[in-house]
């Protein structure tokens, strides 16, 4: 889910890095090539460049639960919080997959992603990762859609269009398992389809009976005749979590700037969510601005919010993170990832990429903790101490 599907001509919200290189280019080719080589080496070795004021970059991609990051930067709320803690925070839009790549390569300091990707991308690649904000869970955004009243029991032998090895496949296999069809999963043929084309590919090919995808693509597909949803993520509530994750080493920076960053972004996040959650038309203005992040209309964005369980208050997110449900979910997710080789071919045991919860409990080998849930900052927000 969650991969943006439209090209969005979004103005860069902060100073684009390209602007600096224009001035460099005027100083002659020699300098320019030296600079670009230095840059290339710098990128490869990923040496962080420290400015006087610590700067942080947050990567996000278009998705109902992440669009608030766009508004946060645009409205100046983020700047206010960053100034309070004496740091700079840049917000940058990515396509989903590149945002994950940038995070794993440590080119950005925080990234919006799902619990599954946090486990199988950075954590499995050895980047110790901490989730500091639990933003929402998919409560119907992801769906299994069929033609001609097909049922899950009829799936074996059919072709299923989806983006393989993502939450779409997770959702589909959970649907089969919940309906006692776990043994039949192997007889289903997956057709790996890029999310940018999946809606049109499904709609124009009557021969393909099943598709698994996410909103707003789901809404587009459902406008066609003779298709219906047989399973959606509201039937597995809380299993597809949308998080903001930060490398643990950033949080643990000796100068404490990482802590400031986490506090500032959490403070800004809950300020935006508070504006969003005002009942009635009072929030229309804010939601319209947020919807602009994905070039959606207010109505369309409201429709997407209806199937997203936002944790509007920090306390509700803390409760979720501290519940036993999260442990059960993460166990399901890590087993799914392991079975499908998403933790890496070398990973011989599911316990090799361990997950730690706010109460200190660990799934997997304690010396191999790679993914942590932290409620520290959300807790501070709940207590009004940010």
């Amino acid at each position, binding site marked *: 889910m969650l991969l943006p599907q439209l090209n969005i001509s979004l103005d860069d919200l902060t100073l684009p890095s390209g602007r600096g290189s224009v001035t460099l280019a005027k100083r002659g080719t020699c300098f320019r090539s030296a600079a670009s080589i230095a840059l290339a*080496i710098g990128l*490869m*070795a*990923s040496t962080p460049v420290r400015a006087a004021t610590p700067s942080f970059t947050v990567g996000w991609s278009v998705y109902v639960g992440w669009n608030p990051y766009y508004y946060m930067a645009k409205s100046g709320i983020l700047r206010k919080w960053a100034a309070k803690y004496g740091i700079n925070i840049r917000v940058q839009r990515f396509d989903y*997959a590149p945002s994950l*790549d940038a995070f*794993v*390569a440590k080119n950005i300091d925080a990234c919006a992603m799902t619990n599954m990707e946090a486990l*199988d*991308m950075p954590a*499995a*690649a*050895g*980047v110790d990762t901490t989730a500091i904000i639990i933003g929402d869970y998919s409560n119907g955004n992801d769906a299994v859609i069929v033609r001609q009243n097909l049922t899950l029991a009829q799936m074996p032998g059919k072709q299923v*269009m989806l983006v*393989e*090895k*993502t939450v779409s496949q997770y959702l589909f296999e959970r649907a089969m398992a919940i309906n006692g069809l776990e043994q039949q999963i192997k007889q289903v*043929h*997956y*057709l*790996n*389809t*890029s999310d940018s*084309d*999946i809606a*049109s*590919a499904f709609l*124009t*090919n009557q*021969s*393909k009976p099943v598709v698994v995808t996410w909103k707003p693509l789901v809404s587009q597909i459902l406008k066609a005749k003779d298709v219906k949803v047989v399973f959606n993520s509201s039937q597995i509530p809380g299993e597809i979590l949308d998080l903001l994750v930060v490398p643990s080493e950033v949080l643990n920076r000796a100068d404490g700037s990482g802590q400031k960053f986490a506090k500032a972004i959490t403070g800004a996040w809950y300020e935006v969510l508070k504006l969003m959650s005002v009942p009635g038309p009072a929030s229309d203005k804010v939601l319209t601005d947020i919807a602009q992040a994905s070039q959606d209309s207010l109505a369309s964005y409201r429709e997407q919010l209806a199937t997203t369980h936002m944790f509007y208050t920090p306390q509700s997110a803390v409760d979720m993170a501290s519940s036993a449900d999260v442990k059960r979910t993460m166990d399901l997710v890590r087993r799914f990832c392991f079975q499908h*080789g*998403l*933790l*890496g*071919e*070398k990973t011989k045991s599911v316990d090799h990429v361990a997950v730690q919860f706010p109460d200190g409990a660990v799934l997997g080998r304690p010396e191999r903790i790679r993914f942590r849930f932290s409620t520290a900052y959300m807790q501070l927000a709940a207590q009004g101490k940010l």
Partner: protein
Amino acid sequence: MSFLRIHAQPGRTAIWTLSWSLFAVGLILYFYAAQQRHRENPDDRVMPTIAQMVRGFSDAALKPAAEEEVQAASGSSLLARFRTSMLWTDTLASGRRFLISVALLFPAVLLGLHMAMFPVIGAFFLRFILFFDKIVALSLLPILFIAFGIDELSKIMLIVIGVTPTIILDTFNLTKSVPREQIVKGFTLGASDFSITYRIVFKQIWPRVLNSIRLNLKAVMLFLFAGEMIASTDGLAYRIALLRRHMGMDTIIPYVLWVALLLFLVDFAMNKLNHKLHPWFQER
């Protein structure tokens, strides 16, 4: 500074050293950066080390592609294991699409030839093909899906639509460049329209056309990869797209090198064949 002049004559060793030096620089930079990253994070997957890539490649080349075949494969010979491997099945799937598409380029050559030789055919096709050549096929995917489905046909059609106009126009221009005098001479010696087309003009341009097809193989490959990344169940690009989901760079990099090697071999073979068939053809 005479060694930097146009008439410099570097020796055999110098040429050999110079031609490999950029490879060496690339490799050294890569492995230096990879080692740095691994020192920081032993589980790094973004820049795999040689050992990781060797393991990734041998897994891809020697382990069976599908889980069901595990029993069948273990214990058999290296060649037999290679033939059930992920790498081989992917190569076969992509190779089949590649060959069909390249085969479909040959009718394009005939069309280009006739367009240049017969003014009426030229008038009929030329303007449309000039227009069609500028269409970015990838942006019309939804229409391609309606017309050709999302299975094999649409992938091959994507390549055909992307590459044939270039080949047609190239053949057209090559045909036009054959001196008019030869055609007139052919007529005075009693040749028919078709014997002039095929036995005088076509014979001369054929090696150049082969060359043009050879130079367009990269475009064929590009469209093939685009097609496989959009929707597929097998193929080299399908595997790369899947591996990207969990940063399997230890397999992706060897895969990319493998594709480069295959492409190089096809290119090399076509070049050699062209020179063998047409020893009088000196251009490269």
